[in-house]
C-alpha cells in the first residue's frame, strides 16, 4: 500500500522542504518574508514553528545579498534554499547567479560544491502588476553550471524540491505560481524519475507537445479537446529546462512526426527554440513538419488586462497543432 495523500502544489513544496530539512540539518531556508508569514504565497508556512529561527529566517530585501550569502554558506557546508519572491525580482541577483554561483565549482576545480536551490515563483495568468508574471528561465538555462527545473504536479513538486536540495549543483527551481493551488495525489513513499527526466503525461500518436511548468495543464486541456475531434496528441512534461531530456522527446517524435513546443516565455531565443533546434538535428528524417513554437509574444509582459491575449491557451496550442498536421 503506497502512502498517497491529496495536496496542492504549494503544500507539496512545503512538505518536500520539511522532509529535506529533517533529512539534513545543514539545510537552511531564507528569503523575503518566508518566516512568520510563510512567503507571499504561503509556500513556507509553518516551517518556522517546526524548525525554529536557526533553520528558516527572513532576509533583507536585497536579492544579490540573498544569493551571495547562500554561496558563502555553501562554502561553509550549508545547503541553502533561497526564495526569490517573484521572478521579476531575480535580476538584482543575476550577477551572483551567473558570474559566481554557476562558475564556482569549475573555477575551484571541484574543491568547492554549490548546493544552492533558488526557488522562483514564475509565469503569469494571475492578473498581477508588472514584474510579477514573467518567465525568465532561458537566461538561466543558457548559463553553464546551473540546473533549471519546474514541477507541474503536486507529486513532482514534493519530490523535485527534495532532489534539488540533495543536488550538489546549483538548481533554479521555477514554481508555476498560477498552479500553486492545483491539487493532486502525492505518493510520499516512492519518488518519480530523476528531476531531469521528461515524462509522457498523456499518450497519443499524431502530434507531440513538449511543454513544462504552468503550460502542462494547458497542453493537457488542449489534448483533451483535440481528442474529442479525433486528433491524438501526446503530451510530454519536460520537467527540466537544463539539461533537457531530448531522448524522451525524440522517441515521441519518431512515433508522431509532429512537434509543437509550448511555454509561457516569449519564444525568441527561448528554451522552446533550443528544443526545436536540437530535435531538427537529432530527428530530422522523422519530422513530417517543421517544429512549431507556441509561447508569449516578443514584447514586455503586458498589463494584466491583456495577458489573456499574450499567453498561449488551449486554442492557440490547437491552432499550432492544426498547422503542423496540415503542413
Amino acid at each position, binding site marked *: 500500500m503506497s502512502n498517497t495523500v491529496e495536496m496542492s502544489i504549494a503544500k507539496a513544496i512545503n512538505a518536500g522542504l520539511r522532509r529535506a530539512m529533517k533529512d539534513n540539518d545543514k539545510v*537552511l531556508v531564507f528569503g523575503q518574508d518566508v518566516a512568520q508569514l510563510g512567503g507571499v504565497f504561503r509556500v513556507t508556512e509553518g516551517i518556522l514553528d517546526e524548525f525554529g529561527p*536557526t533553520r528558516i529566517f527572513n*532576509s*533583507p530585501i*536585497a536579492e*544579490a*545579498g540573498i*544569493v*551571495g*550569502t*547562500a*554561496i*558563502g*554558506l*555553501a*562554502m*561553509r*557546508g*550549508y545547503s541553502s534554499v533561497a526564495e526569490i519572491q517573484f521572478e521579476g525580482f531575480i535580476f*538584482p541577483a543575476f*550577477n*551572483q547567479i551567473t*558570474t*559566481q554561483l554557476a562558475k564556482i*565549482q*569549475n*573555477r*575551484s*576545480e*571541484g*574543491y*568547492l*560544491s*554549490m548546493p544552492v536551490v533558488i526557488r522562483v515563483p514564475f509565469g503569469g495568468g494571475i492578473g498581477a502588476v508588472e514584474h510579477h508574471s514573467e518567465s525568465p528561465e532561458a537566461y538561466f538555462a543558457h548559463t*553553464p*553550471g546551473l*540546473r533549471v527545473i519546474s514541477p507541474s504536479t503536486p507529486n513532482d513538486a514534493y519530490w523535485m524540491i527534495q532532489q534539488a536540495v540533495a*543536488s*550538489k*549543483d546549483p538548481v533554479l527551481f521555477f514554481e508555476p505560481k498560477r498552479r500553486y493551488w492545483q491539487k493532486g495525489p502525492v505518493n510520499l513513499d516512492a519518488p518519480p524519475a530523476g528531476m531531469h527526466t521528461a515524462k509522457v503525461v498523456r499518450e497519443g500518436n499524431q502530434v507531440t507537445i513538449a511543454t513544462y511548468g504552468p503550460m502542462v495543464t494547458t497542453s493537457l486541456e488542449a489534448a483533451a479537446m483535440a481528442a474529442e475531434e479525433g486528433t491524438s496528441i501526446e503530451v510530454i512534461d519536460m520537467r527540466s529546462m537544463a*539539461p533537457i531530456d531530448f531522448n524522451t522527446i525524440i522517441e515521441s517524435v519518431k512515433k508522431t512526426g509532429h512537434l509543437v513546443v509550448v511555454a509561457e516565455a516569449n519564444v525568441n531565443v527561448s528554451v522552446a527554440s533550443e528544443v526545436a533546434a536540437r530535435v531538427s538535428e537529432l530527428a530530422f528524417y522523422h519530422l513530417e513538419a517543421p517544429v512549431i513554437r507556441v509561447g508569449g509574444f516578443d514584447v514586455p509582459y503586458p498589463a494584466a488586462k491583456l495577458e489573456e491575449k499574450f499567453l498561449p491557451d488551449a486554442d492557440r496550442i490547437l491552432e499550432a497543432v492544426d498547422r503542423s498536421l496540415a503542413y
Partner: protein
Amino acid sequence: MTSQDRVPMVQLLNPEGEYGVPSAYAEYGKYIEDLKEEDFLKFYRDMARMRRFDYEATALQRQGQLGLWIPAIGQEAAQIGSGYAVGHNDHIFPSYREHGVAITHGIDLMSILKMLRGVNHGGWNPDETRFHLYAIVLATQTLHATGYAMGVKFDGKVGNGDLENDLAVITYIGDGATAEGEASESFLFAATNKVPLVYFIQNNQYAISSPVATQTTVPLFQRGAGFGVPGIRIDGNDVLASYAVTKKHMDDAREGAGPHLIEALTYRMGAHTSSDDPTKYRSKEEEEYWKARDPLARLEKFLRRQGINQSFFDECDAAGEELSAYVRSETFALGNPPIENMFKHVYSEAHPLIEEQLAWLEGYEASFLDAPQGGAN
C-alpha cells in the same frame, strides 16, 4: 592632497621609520609590544619578496609569458601586515591584487602566475589554505565572506573565548569596489547578522584611472557606519599599524563584536594592470609624494634604527634573486592545460551536454592525428 587625507589615521611607524604609539591608539600599540625581532624581520622579508615577485611578474608579462599582470607595488605593508594578523582558523576572501596576503598564507606564487598566464583560475584549495580564490567581479567576494561568516556563527564558532576553535573572516576590497551595490548589501547582511567579519579596504587612490572622489564623497572608513559596520582609517603604508589594527579587529570579531571595517590609506605605485598607463591620469608630483612614503623603505629605516645589520638586507636581496630565478624557470616550463579541463567540474554530477560535447571535441581533435602528415607533394 584632498580633504580626505586630513582625516586622522592610525600610524605607529612614521615615514622616517620612527615608532611611536599616540595615546589615542594605545589599544593597538599593545599588539606590537607582543612582537619579537623575528616578527619584524619576517614582515620585511615578505614585503621584499612581494615586491621582487611583482618586478619579475611585470617582466614576464612584457616578455609575453603572462597574459596580464596586476601590480601591487606600494601595497606591501597593507597586505603583509594584515595577512599576518589573520588567525590560524580564519578565512580570507581576497579581491584580485592580494599577492602579499597570499604569501602570508603559503599560496605558491606560481599559482598566481599560472592564473595570469591563463592556465587555470587559481587552482589552490580554498578550504585547506583558507585563502579563497581571487574574485574578478568586484565586491562579489564580500557577500561570499558574509555568508561564510554567517555559517561560522550558525556553527557556534564565535565568542566562546576559544582561540583554538573560534574563527573570523576577513575580506579585501579596493576603493573602487566599495561603489558596487553588492558591497553595500554585504555591509547590511553582516551587520544585521552580527557576523565575525572584517572588511579590509585598500584605498590605493585609483580605480584604474578614476580617483577615489569618483566613488565617494565621504572617507571610506565611514562607508559602513550607516549599515552598522563601524570603521577606522589606518596608514596603509605602515606595516605595524596594518598588523595591529587588523589583529585587534579580527580578535574582536572572533569574540562576537560583529563586523568592522578598516580603510588602509595606501598608493598603487604601479599601474592598475599591465594594460594601464598611469601617466595619462596622475602627476609626477603625486607619485613623488607617495614615493617618500614607500612602505618597504619605511620598514627598512625602522629596522636599521633597531640595529639590524646590512647582512640581513643582503640575505633578502639574495632570496629575491632566488625567487626570480624560480618563477622564471617555472613559468617557462608551464605547458598548456589539456582540453578536457574546461569540461571538468562544471557540474558535480553527470550532465549530458558536458559528456556529449567533450566526446565530440575529442573525436574532432583525434581526426587531425589521422590526417596525412607533411606538406603538399
